[in-house]
């Protein structure tokens, strides 16, 4: 049963990743090409649909399926890059705090507490509002804000590992501190960090969509799913599918990543 979740999650993620990578080849239309004579065409399950636009078109006549496929790129790229930025920050802090303890750990704990007190969405919105929206800025801001869980888990797992025999053996063999951190500690806490990475990636994707929805994420005409929902909002009472389609895509992707993370957690056997 639990394994099933892992495989379902993995399958969803692979499928979305393939859609994102292959978008230029499998998308039936240019996601930016407008056709004002063909606005808000309905998707395939409704009456009067046009087979050329399987999922219909948006308010500017752009093909919805093509935008959805390209939108997977935005979500995944922002998710992965954010995890890399926040992972580097959080793991560095957590490992240092957990390994050295004392003053170093006090500083790390202080940084984690401060970070938790900062309202993420508000600060991210404010920064994007001040600098103007761009995908690079969204990654930077989210990366700088979402490292707390990495730090907490890296810190606690490092504390568990640092007293174990193989670390003492490395000390006795005369290894340098950086070497012990990188080749003894880090590989042994990596599995716990992988679980955190999936959770943070899911969160980053949701936050990017929320920011874009509020008009302070990635700039139009990029096909971000959050932006598609925002653009469809004015038409949702008459053409509900314009927000159903990107919303379900977002929900399924985040669900898949979370299922994967949950399955990994069971494999690792820890409480990340």
């Amino acid at each position: 049963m639990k394994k099933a979740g892992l495989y379902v999650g993995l399958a969803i993620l692979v499928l979305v990743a393939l859609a994102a990578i292959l978008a230029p080849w499998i998308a039936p239309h240019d996601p930016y090409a407008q056709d004002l004579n063909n606005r808000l065409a309905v998707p395939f399950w409704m009456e009067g649909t046009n087979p050329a636009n399987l999922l219909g078109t948006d308010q500017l006549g752009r093909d919805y399926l093509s935008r959805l496929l390209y939108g997977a790129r935005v979500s995944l790229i922002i998710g992965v890059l954010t995890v890399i930025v926040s992972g580097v920050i959080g793991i560095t802090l957590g490992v240092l705090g957990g390994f050295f303890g004392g003053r170093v750990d006090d500083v790390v704990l202080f940084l984690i507490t401060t970070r938790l007190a900062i309202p993420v969405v508000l600060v991210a919105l404010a920064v994007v509002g001040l600098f103007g929206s761009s995908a690079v800025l969204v990654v930077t801001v989210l990366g700088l804000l979402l490292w707390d869980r990495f730090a907490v888990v890296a810190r606690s797992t490092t504390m568990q590992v640092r007293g174990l025999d193989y670390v003492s053996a490395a000390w006795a063999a005369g290894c340098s501190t950086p070497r012990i951190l990188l080749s003894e500690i880090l590989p042994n806490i990596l599995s716990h960090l992988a679980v955190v990475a999936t959770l943070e990636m899911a969160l980053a994707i949701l936050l990017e969509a929320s920011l874009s929805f509020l008009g302070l994420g990635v700039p139009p005409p990029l096909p971000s799913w959050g932006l598609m929902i925002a653009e469809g909002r004015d038409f949702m009472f008459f053409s509900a599918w314009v927000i159903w389609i990107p919303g379900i895509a977002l929900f399924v992707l985040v669900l898949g990543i979370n299922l994967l993370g949950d399955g990994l957690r069971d494999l690792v056997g820890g409480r990340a």
Partner: protein
Amino acid sequence: MLALLVSLTVLTLAFTLTRLSGDLAISIAGPAATQEDVEMVRRAYGLDRPLLQQFFSWVGRAAVGDFGESFFFRARVSDLILERMPVTLTLGLVGLCIALVVSIPMGILAAVRENTWVDRLVQLVAMLGQAMPGFWLGLIMMIFFGLQLGWLPVSGTGSWEHYVMPGMVLAFSAIPALTRLTRSGMIQALGSDYIRTARAKGLSRFSILFKHALRNAALPVVSIASVQLGFMLGGSIVIESVFALHGVGFLAWESITKNDFPVVQAVVLVLACIYIALTLAADMLNALLDPRLRG
């Protein structure tokens, strides 16, 4: 001590945040302003003073609750926030109540029926809730409850009915964590010696579950619940703008889009301080509930 240090750091961050973007006077004066206009704005808002001086005068006034005047609303920032705060607090509390009412019974049910289909169903529901984009759920609810069924108002702040949908959406964000925590706490409690003793004494199932087990399982739930309330108040910015609920989050969003930096600064600061206060309150509440924690 830590709380004070954190507050000071957030204060500095809130100040730096708004000075990062270059020349504020230019963005306040607007694109049509001449050089003289910009100079006038600069002097009027004290932006011609050294940065450190600006910082200390802002901190000094912020400490007594004076956040200056809003550029856009032409009103005192503290008045604006105080006026909108009840809406956000109500929303947060409604959300938290719904979340607790849903997640504690679900967690208990899952723990009592551990490893059965009931347990798995609860975990699946928590998983689905975690993946739900709040703003999207809000829109879907508007279509369903607002338009098709006509039960609830779609947007605005007028009556209690306006809080139902946003409260439910906000609750969704906290339900997964609270359910999991209740479940694991209850499983741990039910497996412990004092529960075996209680069973051996022949106490009723109800009394065992609710008087003995839940009391101990509730401790971590209480602290996470207050932390979640803090997150909800911070996250309500999205929900408030979806439902056009005129609370602090909506105010912040309006101010961000209008470059009204005194308001943005103040809201960041106020929300951070509320969060810090909530975590402190959680510690105290725990000490009250658990005699072992009293020093």
